[in-house]
């Protein structure tokens, strides 16, 4: 194979969030969505929508989809784990995990500011934030509430 391509990582999914440039791409990606949404709605609605869509997509990609899209040499050890649980082979509080936990909070703060702390927007944004922060807690590692998404 090519020089410098071989790696001994059993599950590459665990190191995706540590890759070069992914945090920057993530930040720019979010800003991209914000900028795109502006012309049609009022500013508070745009920000609330950005917040909700960001959290929804994050929940789906990190906490719903399980396993790996490629074949791993570890005989399916992570077949029942979500991407969040696979990051860094299950080590808690690594820098990638901290970054991914803080970014919805930062987005929430910006959203609350831009919606002028309106009560209806507040309810929606807080619910969305909680839905994406709770699964990231170390106590929730491997927890499946009501047996949903177990297999």
């Amino acid at each position, binding site marked *: 194979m090519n020089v410098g391509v071989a790696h001994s990582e059993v599950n590459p999914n665990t190191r995706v969030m540590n890759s070069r440039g992914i945090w920057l791409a993530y930040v720019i990606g979010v800003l991209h969505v914000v900028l795109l949404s502006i012309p049609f709605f009022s500013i508070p609605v745009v920000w609330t929508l950005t917040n909700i869509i960001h959290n929804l997509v994050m929940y789906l990609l990190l906490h719903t989809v399980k396993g790996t899209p490629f074949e791993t040499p570890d*005989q399916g050890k992570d077949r029942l784990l979500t991407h969040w649980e696979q990051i860094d082979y299950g080590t808690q509080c690594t820098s990638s995990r901290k970054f991914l936990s803080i970014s919805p909070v930062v987005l929430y703060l910006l959203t609350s500011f831009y919606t002028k702390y309106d009560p209806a927007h507040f309810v929606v944004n807080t619910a969305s934030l909680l839905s994406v922060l709770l699964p990231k807690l170390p106590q929730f590692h491997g927890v499946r509430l009501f047996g949903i998404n*177990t297999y």
Partner: protein
Amino acid sequence: FFSQIDVHLELEDQLAKFMRTEEAIIYSYGFATIASAIPAYAKRGDIVFVDEAACFAIQKGLQASRSNIKLFRHNDMADLERLLKEQETEDQKNPRKARVTRRFIVVEGLYMNTGDVCPLPELIKLKYKYKVRIFLEESLSFGVLGEHGRGITEHFGINIDDIDLISANMENSLASIGGFCCGRSFIIDHQRLSGQGYCFSASLPPLLAAAAIEALNIMEDNPDIFQTLRTKCARIHEALQGISGLKVVGETFSPALHLQLEESCGSRENDMKLLKRVVDYCMNNGIALTQACYLEKEEKCLPPPSIRVVITVEQTEQELDKAASLLKEAAQSVLN
């Protein structure tokens, strides 16, 4: 994979044509064939039903696969059905888990450890009833059973598409090294990247691949050698029947028989010493035999100590008779 040249591809094509399957894949080490094929499909959380008398290579493959192993008594279809029924009730309790669990049955065509055949027609019925996949290991039956040597599927007249994967050693009847797996393209192609023994190893020496091709040509050109082999096996089987102190274990048409002690002398070590004396007696008089060797601590179900007698089609009738009479003499002198 590494250093694969046209001879290997030719051998794969010829094997696929001979066995009448869509595709075949060559491994460079016979033991690694089934030991890589099983973990390529069975992963953690899957269930594999395997016969107790499965050979060591199968056991290592199962160990590498990390799946749940359920052993059933040798050739006992009732036991297997009981296990399958238990699994079915478990599945009904948790259907979501059952949907992601794969189930396999691993059997050998002609068992190396006991010399008998697996009841394939009943297995096919069980397969369709309980939705399990069958992996057939044909190391001893390839080139032995069936009219044209295609193995146990030809012997029983079963459609080859009913078996999901056939794996065989080329080290027995093809007199080469390595092994092959054959089946549908969809199944075999998966092993090109997931079969650890294929992907992370080099191909077998081209000379031996050419030798295997030549052996296949011989098999195709002279289909009567299989009948000759079976008559010779039957002859030896009969000739060895009357030996006092040793009993013959194996089918009449099996080229590998085991001679076990009729009454054991207490410990396995003593049995093995006694058998060694028989083997040495034969060796001193011109016949080479071997004891069946096992890694005692690693086998799941250790078979009793025995002398393994193997017959080839090239041996003449006089040689076979001489060997049988010498064994009788050896048993007489050593065991009495």
